[in-house]
C-alpha cells in the first residue's frame, strides 16, 4: 500500500468547481420551494431553499466493491508487479438536466459513457433509478417535451432515443434472442474480391481463423435505444424545438454543421441545414421567441431563423472579449500581442427566462474567460453588458425568487481568471456568484441568496496547506474535467504537415 499517496489524498479534499448547474422550482402550498443542483467532479451536490443538503457520488458505489487497485504480487523474479492501474477511473459528470415536470434529474458521466436517471423526492433527495452505459461517449442530452424520451447525442455523431423510464416491456424487446448463441464468423471478402497477393494471404488467414471460431465483438447495450439520426462528425449539442404541432431536433457538430431534422417518429427526415459557421459549433440555444443562437470556435455568435435556415445576425464576441481584457484593470495582461491570432471558444449560451416570452436575452460564456456577456439578439447593436466574474465562467442557471430572476453562475475557483492551465496561489473561497436584474434590465451582483447557498458554494476544505505540487496536480485534474472546448478546433495545417 502506498502510504504517501493515501496521505496526500486525505489532505487533498479540495472541491472541484461546478462544471454544470441546474435549478428547479416547485410551487408548494406554503410558497415557493426551489433547489440547486451542481456537478462537482464525480459528485452531485443538492441544496434547497428550505435547507436540504445532500450529495451523491459515483465514487460511493465504487468504494463498496472490493478494490484490488493497489495490490501487487511477487513476480517470479522477485519483482513487485502491479496487477492493475493503481487509481481507479473517476466518473465525472459532464452534463445534468432536470425534466420539465421537476421530477427527474438526468446526468451524463464522460468516462464510463453512462446516462443516469435520478428521481427527485419531495425533499429534493436524489435516488438513482437507472444507469445506462452507451457504446460511445454522450456529448449532450435533452428531453422530449413530454418528458418521456431522452435524446442522447454522442461523440461518434449519432443521436439515440432512450425512454426516460424503461418499461419492463422495453427491456424484454431490447434483448433480441440471446439464446441464439454467437453467430458464426465468415469473412465477407472472397477470392474474387481481393486481388493483391498480400490481401489474399490475409484472407486465407481469416478463413483459417473462421474455421477455428472467433471471439464475438463487444456486447451491444441490452436496454432499449433507438438510433434516430447521425452525422459523420462528433456531435456537440442537441436541442428540441416546437412550432405549432411540429417538433424538431436540431443537432450541431464539429464540422460547422447545424442540422434541422424532424423529431420522432420522423427523425430520419432532414428539413435543412443552417450553413454559415466556419469553425466548429459547440452550443445551441433556443431563445424565448424561438430564434436559434449558436456559437463555437467562430469569432461571432450566429442568430438564426432556423425554420427557414436563414442567418439573421452575426454578433461579434471575440471583440467583446478583447474589449474586456483591454478595459478591465487586472486583465490587461491577457491582451494578446497579435490580436488577429486571438481565439475564443464559446462554452455556454443561456436563454434568460422571461415572463412575457417576448423579449430575447441571452448570456454567453467563452472558455477560460472570467466574464459573461449579456446579448439581446433582437437589438445586437445595443451595447452588450459584460458581467465580470471572480473566475472563469463555467455554467449558469436561473431561479426566480419573489418574482426576480437570479442568475446563479459557477466559476472556476482553482485556476487564475483568464487562464485554463495556471492554478491560483490562493483559491477563491466561493464557487458561485449571484446576479439579479435591476429595473433598467442591467444585471448586478446580488448577495441575497448567498447565505442560503453558503454550504453549496463554499470550497469545503479550502486546501490551504496542501503544498505547491499537490495544488498544481489538482489544477491539472480539474482542467481535464472542466475544459476542452478549444480542442474541438481543427488543426488542418498541423495534420497536413505530419501526413506529407
Amino acid at each position, binding site marked *: 500500500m502506498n502510504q504517501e499517496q493515501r496521505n496526500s489524498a486525505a489532505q487533498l479534499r479540495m472541491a472541484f468547481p461546478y462544471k454544470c448547474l441546474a435549478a428547479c422550482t416547485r410551487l408548494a402550498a406554503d410558497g415557493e420551494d426551489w433547489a440547486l443542483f451542481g456537478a462537482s467532479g464525480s459528485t452531485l451536490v443538492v441544496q434547497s431553499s428550505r435547507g436540504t443538503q445532500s450529495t451523491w457520488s459515483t465514487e460511493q458505489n465504487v468504494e463498496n466493491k472490493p478494490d484490488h487497485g493497489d495490490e501487487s504480487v511477487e513476480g517470479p523474479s522477485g519483482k513487485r508487479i502491479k496487477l492493475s492501474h493503481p487509481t481507479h477511473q473517476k466518473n465525472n459528470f459532464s452534463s445534468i438536466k432536470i425534466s420539465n415536470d421537476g421530477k427527474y434529474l438526468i446526468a451524463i458521466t464522460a468516462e464510463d459513457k453512462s446516462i443516469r436517471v435520478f428521481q427527485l423526492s419531495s425533499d429534493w433527495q436524489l435516488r438513482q433509478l437507472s444507469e445506462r452505459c452507451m457504446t460511445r461517449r454522450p456529448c449532450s442530452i435533452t428531453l422530449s417535451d413530454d418528458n418521456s424520451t431522452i435524446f442522447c447525442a454522442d461523440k*461518434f*455523431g*449519432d443521436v439515440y432515443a432512450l425512454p426516460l423510464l424503461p418499461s419492463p416491456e422495453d427491456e424484454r424487446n431490447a434483448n433480441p434472442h440471446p439464446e441464439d448463441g454467437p453467430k458464426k464468423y465468415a*469473412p*465477407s*471478402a*472472397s477470392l*474474387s*474480391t481481393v*486481388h493483391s497477393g498480400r490481401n489474399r494471404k490475409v484472407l486465407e488467414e481469416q478463413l483459417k481463423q473462421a474455421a477455428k471460431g472467433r471471439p464475438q*465483438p463487444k456486447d451491444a447495450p441490452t436496454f432499449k435505444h433507438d*438510433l434516430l*439520426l*447521425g*452525422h*459523420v*462528425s462528433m456531435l456537440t449539442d442537441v436541442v428540441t424545438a416546437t412550432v405549432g*404541432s*411540429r417538433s424538431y431536433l436540431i443537432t450541431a457538430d464539429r*464540422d*460547422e*454543421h447545424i*442540422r434541422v*431534422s*424532424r423529431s420522432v*417518429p*420522423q427523425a*430520419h*427526415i*432532414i428539413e*435543412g*441545414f*443552417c*450553413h*454559415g459557421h*466556419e469553425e466548429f459549433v459547440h452550443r445551441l440555444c433556443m431563445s424565448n421567441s424561438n430564434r436559434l443562437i449558436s456559437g463555437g470556435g467562430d469569432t461571432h455568435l450566429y442568430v438564426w431563423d432556423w425554420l*427557414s*435556415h*436563414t*442567418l*439573421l*445576425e*452575426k454578433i461579434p464576441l471575440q471583440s467583446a472579449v478583447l474589449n474586456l481584457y483591454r478595459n478591465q484593470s487586472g486583465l490587461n495582461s491577457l491582451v494578446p500581442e497579435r490580436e488577429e491570432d486571438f481565439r475564443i471558444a464559446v462554452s455556454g449560451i443561456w436563454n434568460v427566462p422571461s415572463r412575457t416570452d417576448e423579449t430575447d436575452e441571452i448570456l454567453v460564456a467563452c472558455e477560460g474567460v472570467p466574464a459573461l456577456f449579456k446579448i439581446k439578439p433582437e437589438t445586437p447593436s445595443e451595447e452588450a453588458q459584460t458581467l465580470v466574474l471572480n473566475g472563469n465562467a463555467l455554467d449558469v442557471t436561473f431561479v426566480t425568487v419573489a418574482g426576480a430572476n437570479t442568475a446563479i453562475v459557477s466559476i472556476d475557483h482553482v485556476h487564475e481568471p483568464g487562464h485554463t492551465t495556471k492554478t491560483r496561489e490562493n483559491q477563491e473561497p466561493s464557487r458561485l456568484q449571484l446576479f439579479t436584474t435591476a429595473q433598467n434590465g442591467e444585471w448586478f451582483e446580488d448577495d441575497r441568496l448567498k447565505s442560503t447557498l453558503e454550504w453549496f458554494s463554499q470550497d469545503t476544505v479550502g486546501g490551504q496547506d496542501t503544498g505547491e505540487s499537490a495544488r498544481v496536480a489538482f489544477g491539472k485534474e480539474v482542467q481535464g474535467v472542466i475544459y476542452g472546448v478549444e480542442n474541438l478546433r*481543427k*488543426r*488542418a*495545417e498541423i*495534420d*497536413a504537415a505530419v501526413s*506529407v
Partner: protein
Amino acid sequence: MKRKTDTMPGEPAKRPKREAARKAQGDDEAALPKKRFYRQRAHANPFSDHSLTYPKSPADMDWASLYPAYSLKKSEEVVNDAGGMEVCGSHDETPSDKIRKSTRATTKNVEIADIGCGFGGLLFALAPQFPDTLILGMEIRMSVTEYVHDKIRALRVQNAASDTGTYQNIAVLRANTMKFLPNFFTKHQLHSIFLCFPDPHFKQRKHKARIVSYTLNSEYAYVLRPGGIVYTITDVKDLHEWMVGHFEKHPSFERVGEEEYDGEGDGEIRQRVRIMRTETEEGKKVERNNGDKFVALFRRTEDPPWPTEG
C-alpha cells in the same frame, strides 16, 4: 509502431518520376493522362479532417469554374436566382457579393452525382449519353481526382468541335461526401446518385466508414428529389446485402424492382444501369476476374405528412 512513410521499400523514386511525367504532359492540354502516374492507395479515412476545401454552403459554391460552358456570365440578371438555392446569410450580402455569387452560378444545376467516382469511368460514359445534364464526380483521393480532372480537360480540348459530346457537362472535385454532401447540394437538387464499387470496409469495426448507412441515407434523401434514384453496384455480396438492408430500413427509400432496370430495353434507368455495369473501372476489373456484380436501386419516396397533420 513504425510510422508508414510515403514510399514503399523498393519503389523509392516514384514521386519525382510522377511529377516529371505529369509536368511533361501538362504542357499538352489535349494529351490524355496516364493512370500509372496517378495511382493511389485504395482507401481513405472518411473521419479524418484532411485538409479539404469545401463551400460554406451550396450558395457559396463556384460551379462556373467547374462547368465553364454553362457559366452564367451576365451577372446583373440573376441576382435573385442562385439556382433555386436556399441562400443563407443573404441579409448581410452586399451587391458585390451577389455579383460574385452569380458569376459563380451556372445556367443549370448538377443533377447527377457519382460519389466515389474513382478514375471516372462512369462519368466519361455518362457524359455523351446525357449531354444536357450536369454530372459531378466526387472522390476523396487527391491524385485520383487529379487524374479525372486532367482527363476531362483533355477530352474537352479534343472534342471541342464534336457533335456527339463535348464533355462540358461533367466535372470532378475532391470531397469527403460523408461529411460535406449538404455543403455542395441543396435540398432535392439531384435526381440520381451513383455509388459504384464502394470501399467494402470488411472489418466490422470499420463498418461506420461505409458509404451507406441508415444515418447517411438521410443525407442522400435530403439531396435527392422525390422520385430520384440511388444506384448501387458492388462485387462484395456482404456489402450488397448491407446496402440493401440499410436502404430498405430507411423510410425515405423503396427498392426498385429488377424489371425496371434489368435487360436490354429502353429508358434512362436501364441505360444508366448498363453503363454502371460495364463502364466503371472496377466493373471492368470484376469482369476480367469473372467476379459477381450485385446491383440494387432505391427510389426516394415523398416525405410523409407530419405525424400530427396526417
